[in-house]
Structure formats: C-alpha cells, structure tokens
C-alpha cells in the first residue's frame, strides 16, 4: 500500500515536470525533430544526468542496489525506437 502511495506522489511530480516543461504540447515535441525547439533533449538529458549521478552516488554509499535493468537486444531496441519515432513525430506525445 505504501508503495502505491509513493507511486502516486512520484507520478504527481512526473506529470508536473512534464507540464512545466511544456511537453504536453504538440509543437514542443514535433519541433524537436525539426531542431527548432530543443526542449525535449534539454529536459531528457538534464533528468538523465541528475538521476544518473544520484544513482551512482547512492550505490557507492551502499544505500541502493540497482533494480533489474531494461534488457538490451539490439534489433528489438533499435526497431522499436524506429517505429516509436514515427508515432512521436506524428502525434507529439
């Protein structure tokens, strides 16, 4: 149960961040692929760097162990990414 409450609050933060970055709007996402608006990359990469540094520091301190990592299977990830990009550029989701 506690876990679900945590999920709800983390979701709140997630949605809030997306909204404030403007990524709930079609043109923000679509223009990333035209390179006239770099919001998606700035947002994604900032989140990546913050979370990455934190995770490796916390693991170094022995506070966490990494959860199961997403599996790497080259063809699947790549083909999935290729189809995903079509949908993303079309809808702006």
């Amino acid at each position, binding site marked *: 149960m506690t*876990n679900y409450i945590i999920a709800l609050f983390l979701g709140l933060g997630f949605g809030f961040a997306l*909204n*404030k970055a403007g990524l709930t709007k079609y043109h923000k996402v679509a223009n990333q692929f035209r390179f006239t608006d770099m919001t998606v990359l700035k947002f994604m990469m900032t989140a990546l760097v913050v979370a990455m540094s934190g995770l490796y520091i916390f693991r170094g301190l022995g506070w966490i162990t990494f959860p199961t990592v997403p599996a790497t299977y080259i063809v699947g990830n790549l083909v999935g*990414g290729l189809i995903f990009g079509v949908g993303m550029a079309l809808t702006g*989701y």
Partner: protein
Amino acid sequence: MNRIKSFISQENWSPYVAGILLGIVGLLAVLLSNTLLGASGAFESFVGWIGKKVAPSLFSNLYWGVEGGRAMPIMRPEITWSVILLVGVLLGGTLGALSSRTFKFRFNDDAQWKRIFGPQPWKRWVIGFLGAIVLEFAAGIAGGCTSGLAISGGMLLVPAAFLFIGGMFASGIVTALIVYGRRY
C-alpha cells in the same frame, strides 16, 4: 514566499529546471520503491487487467501470461505500481496546468498543428489515436518508451536506452521531414 509562488505559477519553466525535478523523481523511485519510472507498460498492464476479466481466453497468451502456465508474463495484467504512477502523472499534469491557470479542455488548439494538418478536431483525434497505437506497439517491441527505456534505462547507462534514442530520432526526423515537406 511570494517568489516561490510566482515561480510555481509560471506556465513554462526552463526545461533544465523541469528536468532536474524529473531526475529527482526518477532517483526517488529507485530509492523508495526500487522501481524504474515508465509510462507505456502501465497501459498494457491495465488493458491486460481488464481483458483478463472481459475475455479471459483472448488475453491468455504469452504477453499477459497463461492461466496456470509456468512462464512469467511479459506484462503483469494487474494494477501495477506503474498504473498508479500513471494516475499520478495525469493528476500532476492537471495540477501543473491549474497552477499556471492554463487549465482548459482543448480539442485541437495547437496553432502549429492547425497549420500543418488543418483545424478540424477529428483529424487530431484520428491521427492521435493511430499514432498512439504505433507508439504502444513500438514500446512493446523495444521494451519501453521515452520514460521507461530512454530515461530510466539511460540513468542506469543501459545500452538499450541509447539504441532506442538513436532509433527514435532517426525515424522522428524522417517523419517530420515527410509531414512538413518544404516547411521543415
């Protein structure tokens, strides 16, 4: 205090600030629940959960698991942690819009969309629906979406995440080129 208030009520934050917030959320997910953030899987789990109740035989397959089968399902057909997370995302997005007083029911009011595809709301709905099917299908193949694979995998430095981002941009650029044509 007033400065904090006025900051929160801004419609758009710098993407760096919003990114830091998402990074902290991703970090807390691992710290508190030992889970990675993800959005696309939640839809699949939720649909599986409903499907198992409505049409058990149709939904008894490798993807959502076979009743009494030994193999682990690829997607657990239950209300998972991610489904709750997704509920939070919807509420959080609403809260964000409310905080900047831009909350409004919109059917099709993105100026750029209208210029490219036309002003009719049904076009937005049809393309949105079909595009979302493409997104979910692709996320199923790749094993995650922008949040579940690209960001969550990326922060663990998983190669899959960077393959996915590469593929996403390659085809995204081509799609945008086709859609926008000379206006690219």
